[in-house]
């Protein structure tokens, strides 16, 4: 298992370097004028030149690339071109906020979606199954920003049941924070319910049809025993992989949801930086999101290896 983890970690580092390089190329090689973008169209050219000089954006490309890579290794991403504040604390706060929102969305989605998927699989082709499939398809085909807007108008503006912006007041307690995050989390959960439920259903149906499940039933195990001992561990493997990808996606910030609910998670922060050519923030943000993706995938691989000994043994060979 240690060898498996080591190999996965090394692969992750390689991926991280590739990611940092691609982000650097996009941010630095494509034509743009950072000084002009920051100061705006009305600023005199001499001010733009002076700013580019101060920011170092007119230095040789290789010099900037080396600095950028050193920054990745030391986690020193420098100061924002726009606010002149260190990048890392800003992004740490943003990823923290995204984590809270994504966490709540996942807490809502995962148990309900897995239960719905199992429920549907055991009632394959019956009305209950059709209902779950239809619900899943519908919920995952409506974009988050549509769901979010409807929730804002109905639940927030008309019924005034929940806050329409997700940023809680300063020093808010846990329950207040939860209340503020509930609506955007619901908007995200509705979409991901469909993905996870359908994946769980498909995995479960496949396992339910397998020989070892039939054997378990024939040897006299109850349905509950069969499900827990033999079906779940195998049926949920694809679901775990899907959830891992979704975690990275959710932590990266769902820009549409963050905008609708005025929540400054990673999505809004990155968009704000992108609009202003704030290269240090963009680079650091992309790398942090990449790290989250890799950790989520690694965790999923470990869970899958734990769930299925065959995969574990293959990895150790």
């Amino acid at each position, binding site marked *: 298992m240690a060898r498996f983890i080591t190999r996965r970690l090394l692969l992750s580092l390689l991926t991280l370097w590739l990611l940092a390089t691609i982000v650097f190329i996009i941010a630095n090689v494509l034509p743009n*004028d950072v000084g*002009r*973008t920051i*100061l*705006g*169209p*009305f600023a*005199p*050219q001499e*001010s733009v030149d002076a700013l580019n000089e101060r920011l170092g954006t007119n230095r040789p490309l290789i010099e900037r690339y080396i600095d950028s890579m050193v920054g990745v290794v030391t986690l020193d991403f420098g100061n924002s071109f*726009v*606010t*002149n*504040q260190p990048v890392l604390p*800003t992004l740490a*706060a*943003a990823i923290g*906020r995204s984590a809270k929102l994504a966490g709540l969305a996942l807490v809502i989605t995962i148990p309900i979606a897995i239960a719905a998927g199992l429920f549907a699989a055991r009632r394959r082709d019956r009305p209950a199954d059709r209902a779950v499939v239809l619900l899943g398809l519908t919920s995952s085909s409506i974009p988050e920003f549509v769901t979010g807007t409807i929730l*804002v*108008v109905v639940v*927030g*503006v008309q019924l*005034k049941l929940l*806050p*329409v*912006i997700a*940023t809680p*007041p*300063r020093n808010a307690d846990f329950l207040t924070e939860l209340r503020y995050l509930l609506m955007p989390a619901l908007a995200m959960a509705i979409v991901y319910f469909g993905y996870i439920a359908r994946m769980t259903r498909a995995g479960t149906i496949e396992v339910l049809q397998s020989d070892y499940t039939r054997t378990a039933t024939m040897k006299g195990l109850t349905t509950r025993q069969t499900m827990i001992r033999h079906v779940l561990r195998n049926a949920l493997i694809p679901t775990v992989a899907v959830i891992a990808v979704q975690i990275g996606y959710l932590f990266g910030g769902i820009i549409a949801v963050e*905008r*609708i*609910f*005025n929540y*400054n998670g990673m999505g*809004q*922060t990155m*968009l*704000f930086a992108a609009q*202003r050519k704030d290269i240090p923030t963009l680079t650091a943000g992309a790398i942090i999101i990449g790290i989250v993706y890799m950790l989520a995938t690694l965790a999923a691989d470990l869970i899958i290896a734990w769930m299925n000994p065959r995969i574990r043994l293959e990895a150790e060979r």
Partner: protein
Amino acid sequence: MDYSRLDPVRRSVTPIQLDLVEAFANGRITRRQFIKRASVIGLSLSSVTAVIAACSGGTPSAAPASPGASASAGASPSASAAVTGGTIRCAIQRPVSVDPVGMQDLGGYGIVAQSFEFLMGQSTDPNNPGALSPALAAEAPVPNDDGTVWTFKLNPNAKWQHDGSPLTADDVVATMERLVAAGNSGLKGVLDPGGAVATDANTVTFTLVGANGNFPYLVSIYNAQTVITPKDYVAGTTFDGRPTGTGPWKLVNYNQQTGATFERNPDWWGGQTPLDGTEFIFFDETGPMITAYQGDQVDAIVQFDVLTGAALFNDPNFTLIAQPAALHRQIWMRVDKGAFADVKVREALALTWDRPALIQQLFQGRAQIGNDHVIWEGYPYFDAAAVPQRERNVDRAKQLLSEAGAADLTATLHAGELQEIPDLAVLLKSQAAEAGITLNVEVESLNTFYGAAWCPAEPADPPCSGAADLGIVDYGHRATPDVYLNAALKSKGIWNSSQYASAEFDAAFTEFQAAVAVDAQKAACTKIETILNRDIPVGLPYFYNYLAGNSNRFTGVFSSALGQMSFATTSQVA
């Protein structure tokens, strides 16, 4: 005319002030223009009152100038019953920077102005939106006879929040030095290093590069970076890095991502604020601001546009602050090349515009008709009689096009993705089509629009010579039209995308800049209006209102047209 009241004022004022008094007494300027101009050149409130009374035969309600003055076009109306205490939550654009010297955005202006103050603030007189009133200046400044030297007496009660020390002339001088060194756009070419001198602890004298009748505007709320900072303030320091100021609110917390909170400054020279504190919530878009208000999560909105905020107009619980302002769009037409080089073609296009319909459709009536020149009707030197209003005349447009040999004119109209501009472009296209003009609308991202269509960096000489033949560009509010005239219209101006070059116009602009007396300013503006309306290097269909507002659970909310919302006199309605 009651000469017994007028003559004492005539004898006591300076030559520039006397000129203003005579202009009003002889009916050459309106009462509103008189009061607004009086606030700039230091005519005392008692003199203003006496002159108006002498000329009207009654006792006028003169311009209030205290921070506790009542409602205006820039303020929500005061209610009779109000309670103290509480907090107001305000939606504001997320600031890019809160560095008082370097800030460039409305969000930054709005936050910094909560604690820092200007020499001159904005009057809250309901009859004179946009007039100045002293803030950190004890009274309106007094110019010398030719307007080259302006003397400001400072408010003796103003104190710094961080140590309770009084505001001094040295603080003002140091602030001005920092601004001049940073190339502040309002002070550039007006004030040189060393131009501001402390003549005593409470008096600052500004010796200008040349005569300037509008100098107080340049050190007022209308030049947002001229907030007075302490002598030892270091340029580049952000407000949250060193929270202080002389204003009504003390910064408690600032988070660039989410918002800022303020508490009452008990030592404010203007007295105790009715509210205990204020909370600013940052937004990146207007839409969520509106829903946040509708969902009862904010009480005030610093700025919104008509299209996004239309739902608020019919909300009985919302107090709309619709402030007439010089905000406008210029439709530039290249005068040096292409289809619009012939003035007949430019006039033909301008004649196709149904301006009242544009205002109704784009702003629901919340704008004023423009007449293809940049002198806004709110300026004291605006001359309504200078040129007749250009009105839609499709037949005349067709005739002009025919005379110019451009009966089948086809052109590309460039427009940036900003507020109502894409819709304006579409409306202009349909209106022009009735005269046989085919406009192909190109809506572009703002970076592309500014960088490629409006004013490309290359070729650099003359500036903007790479601009497209036709486009719509946005201009913000300015207390004086100098920037519009100097940058967009003067020969080789840095934003002159029409490539307009007129010796006659340049001379009129120079005359305007040097004019100090109101008659001279108005005379210069009459020329400017006439020349621009005749030459039409830019079409200007409207000036639109700056929109802000608040829940009617609060009263006494005040807003400038530059993102500065003031809650110093705000209270909750009982």
